[in-house]
């Protein structure tokens, strides 16, 4: 055991099983092993159990059954990220764990601060430590910059540095490219290959096959909580991987005929919004959405898309400019009045804004219409009518549940999203705001939801689609606008020939159209 090569795998997870309190079995008897110095891909559909497995490794979730071996030795005391780091395991999460108000150097040394006189944080030393580690790994970052001012790509760099400075040997990256533009992704890959050269081991969680092919040595594929196989990446094709991940040949190509745009249903005219902290979020936004059209809004998260959606749906009030829905300005209308005009909204975060988890599926389905005729009288609701409608939607949208009275919180993420989509698409809307409609949803449900959106378009609704998934935006949209720093920097009336790379240049702010090009005036 004292010899360096006494173990074949630097990390081994044996027979791992994890069941969540709601009864969902996220991992079933998983065996996962990683060799020293490789980049190992962990792939599977959303909800397949990749993140769960890594969370257990990192001490964020308890292992129900199974064992973990690091460098050939059994480890059974990983109860917190601190324990994991002690064992040389670091993780970069999809959502960054950084303190925006502190500088880069302060974030780096958080928890391991160099001390002055035993009490004060030695900031000079912190800066020096940051520069040293950044130099060692050839990462370019300013130690004095406030983290809140960093781009997403730099924040990710910082997260990686945070792990490296703690002496981490195994680095877990959870879908690191999800928030990056193609250009930032290229840079990340160069860095990762550099780490590999320096002897680090990397676990790369991703379901983007092209990236796996480009970067990784081996791949473990997980489907529905079970391992489907471990392969050398250059010995399997993208099609093979895809089939193993999904269990059938899926073509994530949504059937879609040409659009037939009609009248303008939603018009946004020189919209400006400054938030309560005085930060200008939206600056002169202009666009039109027509009936029978899917308009995609592309952009790196945090460039004003969320705020724009909240304003259009009436959650946030705007400062100046106009939002006109069916020829009526919505500024002084309540959310219900806006919904009654035909607006429907699939919110980004379903657990926070899309459902009431303790209430039944039926209760959640009628939340936008319980007050309408048929569903209730002056004081009382009509349970029979509600049951009828919920049962029908459960059937139509293939929601997997035991009955409409089951608490919605006990369903899987994909089924919860189907309930939200069922509600929002069944109210006969003329404008649908779909914010990340397929995030964290399995392939089957994704296909289904996308097809539903297209059929709503064909039936004459205008769809505003916001997605971090470039593939989804390109696949579904008829026209695309790109947002960068609160402005529309590009408008493609016909997006059928647009590529991800081209879109990426605009999303990053490297390219920008002039006012005339983004104008909707014909």
């Amino acid at each position, binding site marked *: 055991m004292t010899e360096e090569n006494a173990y074949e795998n630097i990390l081994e997870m044996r027979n791992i099983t994890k069941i969540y309190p709601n009864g969902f079995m996220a991992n079933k008897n998983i065996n996962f092993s990683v060799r020293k110095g490789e980049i190992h891909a962990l792939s599977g559909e959303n909800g397949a159990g990749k993140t769960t497995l890594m969370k257990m490794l990192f001490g964020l979730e308890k292992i129900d059954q199974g064992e973990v071996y690091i460098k050939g030795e059994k480890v059974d005391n990983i109860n917190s990220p601190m324990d994991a780091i002690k064992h040389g395991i670091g993780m970069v999460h999809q959502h960054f764990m950084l303190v925006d108000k502190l500088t880069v150097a302060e974030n780096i040394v958080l928890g391991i601060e160099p001390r002055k006189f035993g009490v004060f944080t030695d900031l000079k030393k912190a800066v020096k430590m940051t520069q040293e580690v950044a130099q060692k790994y050839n990462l370019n970052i300013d130690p004095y910059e406030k983290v809140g001012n960093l781009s997403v790509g730099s924040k990710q760099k910082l997260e990686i540095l945070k792990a490296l400075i703690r002496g981490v040997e195994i680095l877990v990256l959870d879908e690191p490219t999800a928030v990056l533009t193609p250009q930032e992704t290229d840079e990340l890959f160069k860095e990762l290959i550099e780490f590999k050269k320096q002897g680090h081991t990397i676990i790369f969680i991703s379901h983007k096959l092209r990236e796996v092919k480009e970067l990784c040595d081996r791949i473990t594929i997980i489907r529905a909580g079970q391992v489907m196989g471990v392969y050398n990446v250059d010995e399997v094709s993208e099609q093979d991987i895809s089939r193993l991940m999904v269990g059938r040949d899926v073509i994530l190509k949504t059937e879609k005929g040409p659009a037939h745009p009609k009248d303008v249903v939603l018009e946004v005219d020189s919209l400006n919004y400054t938030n309560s902290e005085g930060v200008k979020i939206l600056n002169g936004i202009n666009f039109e959405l027509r009936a029978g059209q899917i308009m995609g809004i592309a952009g790196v998260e945090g460039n004003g898309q969320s705020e724009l959606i909240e304003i259009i749906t009436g959650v946030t009030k705007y400062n100046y400019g106009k939002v006109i829905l069916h020829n009526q300005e919505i500024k002084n209308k309540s*959310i219900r009045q806006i919904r009654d005009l035909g607006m429907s909204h699939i919110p980004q975060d379903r657990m926070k804004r899309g459902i009431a988890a303790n209430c039944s599926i039926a209760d959640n389905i009628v939340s936008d219409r319980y007050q309408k005729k048929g569903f209730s009288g002056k004081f009382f609701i009509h349970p029979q009518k509600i049951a009828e409608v919920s049962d029908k939607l459960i059937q139509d949208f293939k929601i997997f549940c035991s009955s409409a009275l089951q608490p919605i919180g006990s369903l899987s993420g994909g089924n919860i999203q189907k309930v939200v989509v069922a509600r929002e698409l069944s109210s006969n809307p003329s404008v649908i705001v779909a914010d990340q409609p397929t995030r964290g949803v399995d392939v089957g449900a994704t296909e289904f939801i996308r097809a539903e959106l297209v059929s709503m378009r064909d039936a004459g609704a205008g769809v505003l689609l916001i997605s971090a998934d470039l593939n989804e935006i390109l696949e579904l949209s008829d026209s695309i606008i790109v947002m960068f720093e609160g402005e529309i920097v590009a408008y493609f009336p016909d997006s059928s020939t647009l590529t991800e790379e081209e879109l990426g240049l605009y999303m990053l702010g490297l390219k920008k159209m002039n006012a005339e090009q983004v104008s909707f005036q014909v």
Partner: protein
Amino acid sequence: MGDKLRKVNLLVDLTKVLLTIFISLVCVTLLILLVSKDPMKAISAFYLGPFTTLRRFSQIFQLATPIMFTGLAVTIMLKAGLFNMGSEGAFFFGGIGATCIAVNMSMAPGIHTIAALLAAAVFGGLVGIIPAFLRAKYDINELVVSIMMNYVMISISMFILNYYLRDMSVSARISKPFPESAVIPRIFGTAHFGFVIAVVVAIFVYVFLYRSKLGYEIRISGSNGLFASYSGIKTLKVIVLSQVIGCAIAGLGGGVEVLGSYKAFSWEGATGYGFDGMVVAIIARQNPLFAILAALFMGYLRAGADIMNRTSDVALEVISVVQAIMIVLVAAEAFLSKWRHKLTVKKAGITKEASAS
């Protein structure tokens, strides 16, 4: 899967309540053994006392009545996601409201009672308006305001009692006696028809929460306020109305209590029923129908403790020990959670497969 899971949750919840009751009773028994010179006598008075005579038995219902009202009041507000502790003040103020009508007006029997109880509900509802308004308008935490309001409401009540309702012919600070026409008639022993009213209100609250539009809005807003507003529900309205209705029920409880159990308004300070309502609502797991059972159980414990207090050397305060233990155990999410997880794992049907492979 969903069905199995529901059964697991029901089983665990039920076991949790029963185990909670059991543990707290064991603790009380041990406590009695420790402090009493004649523990067997005290223990038998506590557990069996309420069943020895009809009069003692009737006490269970009498004592369950006020806490059922406050329990239901708390239930409605908790369902709306609000921690309003104002049912104490509302209960007290409701008692004064009922007294005002009872002693200052003369009406036909029955009608007099109903008028007095309506006044009690209105007075109670008034108490709910202030924290509700402050929360809805300025987002001021209702917990703090409602607790402070309790002292204010009790003082205002004492003022009204002193200057408008007081019986000057006696030295104690009590109201003029209630006329026969306003008193709530007895069923048997000391149990009065207020108990029946409480049960009717419990059923009303159930129907209200699960069958009415406003009840629906309350449940959705309480489960997820952000989602409710995204759906177009006016959450401010829900915040105000749920507290007004909740406090009105507490106020009605105060009216029922004074007209059913007293000859005149004679409270001198907080009754404690408001906080007991919290216990009832929590033990009943916010279900209005379970609140009936929870209140009866609490009534039984109180009747027993009262008898033990009178016939042995153990004081009434023992009951607070039971209550405290029960609250801690019922509120403790982690209590039995391992067992719940184990059952869930088992129901998911994997242990077998995993060990087989």
